[in-house]
């Protein structure tokens, strides 16, 4: 973590909270959660949109959205977010399926609709200027409702933001066991801090 105030908390209450949660969970509170506690007055709308995109009403299951988040993290080379959101997806999906999607979603045993959506999100993430109506139409033709594709784009947008500040701030990488324990919390509590 490159900003020490985020690491230790920017108020007495937040320092207590970070210490308490770390003590109870018997692991260092992940940097993503520390950012959620930091400068709340400034960045609260980020948590609100992330919560709506990841846990709000949608045709996509929570697990499918977590897999999309992990894919965006992969495309943006964010090891922290690949680990964190791959671990959440693996709570309700075979770990081998998550790994297969992360390795190559084109050949992974996932639905055609999810594959077509991931193709749309991949272009949106890596080559946004090239994203066209034809790409949206291809996903719709694969059986994805336009509203569902919009929901997926919201997931990809929030994770195009999160992965960028996670990398810029150099989030510390938890162990596989810590990711799995943090995933249980994230599944239960969501993104609202």
């Amino acid at each position, binding site marked *: 973590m490159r*900003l020490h*105030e985020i690491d230790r908390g920017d108020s007495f209450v937040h320092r207590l909270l970070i210490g308490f949660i770390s003590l109870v969970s018997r692991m260092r509170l992940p940097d993503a959660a520390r950012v959620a506690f930091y400068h709340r007055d400034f*960045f609260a709308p*980020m948590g609100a949109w992330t919560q709506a995109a990841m846990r709000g009403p949608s045709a996509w299951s929570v697990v499918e959205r977590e897999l999309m988040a992990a894919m965006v993290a992969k495309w943006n080379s964010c090891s922290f977010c690949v680990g964190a959101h791959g671990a959440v997806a693996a709570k309700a999906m075979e770990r081998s399926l998550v790994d297969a999607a992360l390795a190559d979603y084109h050949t992974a045993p996932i639905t055609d609709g999810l594959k077509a959506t991931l193709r749309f999100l991949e272009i949106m993430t890596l080559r946004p200027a090239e*994203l066209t109506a034809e790409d949206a139409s291809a996903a719709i033709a694969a059986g994805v409702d*336009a509203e569902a594709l919009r929901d997926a784009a919201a997931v990809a947008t929030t994770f195009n933001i999160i992965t*960028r500040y996670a990398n*810029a701030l150099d989030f510390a990488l938890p162990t596989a066991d810590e990711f799995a324990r943090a995933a249980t919390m994230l599944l239960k509590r969501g993104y609202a801090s």
Partner: protein
Amino acid sequence: MTTSAPADHDALAQALRDRVLDGPGESDRALRQAAAERAAGGLAMEDPYDALAQAIGTASYPVTDAQVARVVEAAGGEKAAFEIIAAAAVGAGLQRWRQAVKALTEASDAPPRNRPRR
């Protein structure tokens, strides 16, 4: 799957933009707006902000300790530096949101073809 009123992503995106790029903060609004533009492929900005904002927009993983430290020093503190980093990330993200919405709108405006429900 969850049901009830759909999320208003446009309103949530606008609220994020309004707060991070136009709202009060420890850093100058114009600096945050420039960082957001730069990360979305816009004009270069002054040093040391340019290298960091540009990297956040294109490839954020090679950002260095030194790049962030220089921005902390120039911006006058960690909170101000955080705002600039957040603004650049939001700029890159919202650029992608606008592209996705445009693609979806144009696809919806196209003559009906095969639009089954998921």
